[in-house]
C-alpha cells in the first residue's frame, strides 16, 4: 500500500516516478503545463490495467489503440491555449452510461452487441474538459445489486481482498479507481450504488443532489432516483469531476428549474472552491460553527462494532476541531429500504419494458420448444433469455406493486413514506448543515455470502437509500479500516443547497483522518 503525504498546496506537483499515484487535478496541471504528455499518463495506467485486469474483472471494455482520436483532440485544444480542467485525465465509465462508439451491455445479455450512437451529456462534458474516456466497467446487471455479483460477465473482485465483493452496483468503477486503473471513474447511484462501493474500496464516492447532473444517456433503472456521480482518490477530485459534469441539459428529463440544480450548479463554485483548496475558508464563512447531526437510525442494530467505533472516532476528531456534533433522529428512515425497493422496482418494471428484442439488443426469433414465431413470443423469449434472475425478480416485484389490487397498499404507500422521509430531512436540515453516518453497516463481505438472501443484501443499503428517496446530496469518504484491513467509509448527507458545505466538511474529515494516500489498494 502506498501512502502519500498530504497535499494542501495548489501548486503544480513535481512529476513523480509513479504517475498512477497522482490525483486527477494534479495530472491535469502537469499535462496543461507540458510536464507530462497524455501518452505518458495513459501508458502508466495501461501497465496496471494489463497487469490486474483479468484478476479483478472490473473492466468490460478497454482498447488502448482506440484512444488516439481523443488524445489528438485534447492535445489540439491544449496547443490552442485552451485551459482544460481534466486535461489528459483517464476516466473509466460504468457500462450503463453511453459513450459514443463503445459497446454498452449494462452487464446483461439482453443488449447483445449494442454500440452507443451518442455520448451521455455527462460524458460529453467530461470530454470537453479534456478527459480521456478509457472504456467501460463491470456492474450489477442494469445496476440492480449491491455486490456486483449479478453481472452476466461475472463478479468483480475487491482490490483490497479478492475474496470480497467491491460493492455495487458500480463495483467495477470503484475497483478500477482503487486498483489505480484511472484516478477517476464514473458510476450511477440509485440507492447507494456509488457510495457503498466507494466505502468497500476505500475511495471517495459522490452522489450529487438529484438532477445536478443530467441523466441523458444513462440507462434508466429508477428514473426518480438515478444519479450519475464520480469515484476518486480525493474529495477535491470528486468535486472537480462533479462540477464538470453538472449543468444545463436541454435533452434530458431533468430540468434545472425542477430541483434548482442544473442552472445553479454551474455557479456553485465547486471548481473555484477546490481549485485553491479553500474549503476551510468556506467552513469558517458559515454563520457560526459547522453543525453536524449524527443519525441515530443509522447507528443501531445491524451496524458492525468496527463501523460504530470508526464513526465514533470521526465524531471525536470533528468535536476536537470545534465542530458541533449532536445526535439526531429521523424516525421514518427505518422504512426507507422497503419504500425504496417498492419504488425502484416499480419504476424498473416500466423502464425495462423497452428491452423487447425489437429496436435494439438481442432477439430470440422463435420459441425453440413450440416453434412459435409470433410477436408475443419474440417479446417473451427475448426478455426471458436476455435478463438475469435478479433483474427478472425485480421487474416482477415492480409489476406486482403497480398491479390492480395492490397499487394502493404498495406503490402509493411507499410514495407517502418517501414524502414523509423528505419532510423529516427538510426539518433536520433547518438545524444542521450536514448529517453523518456510516456509509455501509459493515466492511466488504465475501463473494457469495449474501447472494441468496435478498433481505441481507438489501440491508447493505440501510444508510444510503434515503438520500435517493429525498433527492439530497451524499458522499462517502474513507474513514479507516477494520481489523482485517478492509476499508470503512463514512457518509455525509446535505440538502441540495448545502452540497458545497458537505464537500467542504468531507475535505475536513479527509484532512483530519489523513488517510487519503492510504486509499490505494495494494492489489
Amino acid at each position, binding site marked *: 500500500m502506498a501512502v502519500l503525504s498530504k497535499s494542501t498546496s495548489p501548486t503544480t506537483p513535481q512529476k513523480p516516478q509513479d504517475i498512477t499515484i497522482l490525483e486527477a487535478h494534479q495530472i491535469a496541471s502537469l499535462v496543461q503545463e507540458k510536464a507530462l504528455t497524455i501518452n505518458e499518463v495513459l501508458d502508466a495506467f495501461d501497465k496496471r490495467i494489463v497487469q490486474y485486469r483479468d484478476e479483478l474483472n472490473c473492466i468490460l471494455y478497454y482498447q488502448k489503440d482506440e484512444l488516439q482520436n481523443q488524445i489528438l483532440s485534447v492535445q489540439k485544444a491544449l496547443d490552442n491555449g485552451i485551459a482544460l480542467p481534466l486535461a489528459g485525465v483517464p476516466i473509466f465509465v460504468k457500462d450503463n452510461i453511453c459513450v459514443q462508439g463503445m459497446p454498452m451491455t449494462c452487464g446483461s445479455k439482453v443488449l447483445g452487441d*449494442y454500440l452507443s*450512437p*451518442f455520448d451521455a451529456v455527462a460524458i460529453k462534458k467530461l470530454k470537453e474538459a479534456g478527459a480521456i474516456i478509457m472504456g467501460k466497467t463491470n456492474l450489477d446487471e442494469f445496476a440492480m445489486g449491491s455486490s456486483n455479483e449479478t453481472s452476466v460477465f461475472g463478479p468483480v473482485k475487491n482490490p483490497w481482498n479478492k475474496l470480497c465483493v467491491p460493492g455495487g452496483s458500480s463495483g467495477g468503477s470503484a475497483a478500477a479507481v482503487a486498483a489505480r486503473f484511472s484516478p477517476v471513474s464514473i458510476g450511477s447511484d440509485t440507492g447507494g450504488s456509488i457510495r457503498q462501493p466507494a466505502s468497500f474500496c476505500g475511495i471517495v464516492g459522490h452522489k450529487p443532489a438529484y438532477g445536478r447532473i443530467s441523466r*441523458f444517456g444513462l440507462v434508466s433503472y429508477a428514473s426518480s432516483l438515478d444519479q450519475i456521480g464520480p469515484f476518486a482518490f480525493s474529495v477535491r477530485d470528486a468535486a472537480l469531476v462533479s462540477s464538470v459534469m453538472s449543468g444545463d441539459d*436541454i*435533452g434530458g428529463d431533468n*430540468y434545472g*428549474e*425542477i*430541483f*434548482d440544480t442544473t442552472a445553479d450548479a454551474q455557479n456553485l463554485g465547486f471548481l473555484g472552491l477546490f481549485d485553491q483548496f479553500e474549503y476551510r475558508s468556506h467552513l469558517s464563512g458559515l454563520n457560526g460553527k459547522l453543525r453536524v447531526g449524527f443519525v441515530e437510525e443509522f447507528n443501531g442494530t445491524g451496524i458492525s462494532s468496527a463501523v460504530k467505533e470508526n464513526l465514533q472516532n470521526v465524531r471525536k476528531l470533528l468535536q476536537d476541531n470545534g465542530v458541533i456534533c449532536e445526535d439526531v433522529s429521523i424516525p421514518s428512515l427505518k*422504512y426507507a429500504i*422497503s*419504500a425504496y*425497493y*417498492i419504488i425502484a422496482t416499480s419504476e424498473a418494471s416500466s423502464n425495462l*419494458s423497452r428491452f423487447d*428484442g*425489437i*429496436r*435494439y*439488443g438481442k432477439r430470440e426469433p422463435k420459441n425453440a420448444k413450440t416453434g412459435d*414465431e*409470433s*410477436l*408475443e*413470443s*419474440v417479446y*417473451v423469449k427475448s*426478455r*426471458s433469455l436476455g*435478463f438475469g434472475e435478479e433483474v*427478472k*425478480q425485480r*421487474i*416482477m*416485484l415492480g*409489476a*406486482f406493486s403497480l*398491479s390492480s389490487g*395492490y397499487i394502493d*397498499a*404498495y406503490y*402509493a*404507500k*411507499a*410514495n*407517502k*413514506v*418517501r*414524502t*414523509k422521509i*423528505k*419532510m423529516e430531512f*427538510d426539518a433536520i436540515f433547518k438545524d444542521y448543515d450536514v448529517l453523518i453516518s456510516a456509509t455501509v453497516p459493515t466492511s466488504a463481505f465475501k463473494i457469495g455470502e449474501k447472494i441468496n438472501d435478498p*433481505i441481507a443484501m438489501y440491508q447493505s443499503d440501510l444508510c444510503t437509500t434515503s438520500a435517493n428517496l*429525498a*433527492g439530497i446530496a451524499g458522499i462517502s469518504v474513507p474513514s479507516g479500516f477494520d481489523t482485517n484491513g478492509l476499508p470503512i467509509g463514512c457518509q455525509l448527507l446535505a*440538502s*441540495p443547497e448545502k452540497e458545497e458545505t458537505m464537500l467542504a466538511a468531507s475535505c475536513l474529515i479527509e484532512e483530519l483522518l489523513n488517510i487519503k494516500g492510504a486509499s490505494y489498494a495494494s492489489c
Partner: protein
Amino acid sequence: MSVSGKKVIIDDALIHHLGRLTKLEVTPAQMPAYKAKLQTIVDYMDDLDNCDLSGVPTDAGSEMTPNDEIVSKENSSPSLTSHTKLQRPSNRLRNDVICKKYTDLNIEEFLVQAPTATGTSFQVPKIIE
C-alpha cells in the same frame, strides 16, 4: 404487507399473472424459487404498515404534474417538489416533446442497432396474415 387486512400470498397464479404482465416466462422449475423469493421480499415490506403517515398529504407521490399544470412552491404540498430554494413556480416533468438531441441522430444510426430492420423501419414478425 396486508391488503384489506389479509396477508398477501404469492402463489402460482399470481406469478403467472405477473409473468404475463411483464412478458417474462416462468418455467415450472423456476416457480418455487420465484414464489419463495418474492414472498420473502413482500413479507419484509410489511413494515410499511407501521409507518405513521399523519401529516403526509393524501396526494403525496402523485404530484407528477406536466408543464402546463405548474404548481407554485407556496401552494404545493410538502413533497419532492418542495425542497427547491427557488421561489418561482416549479414543475417536475418536461413537456412531452421530441428532444433536439434525438433528432441529431439519423434513422440509420438507430436502425443499425436493431436485430432486424427493413428500409427505414424496425422489422417485426407478422401480426396479421
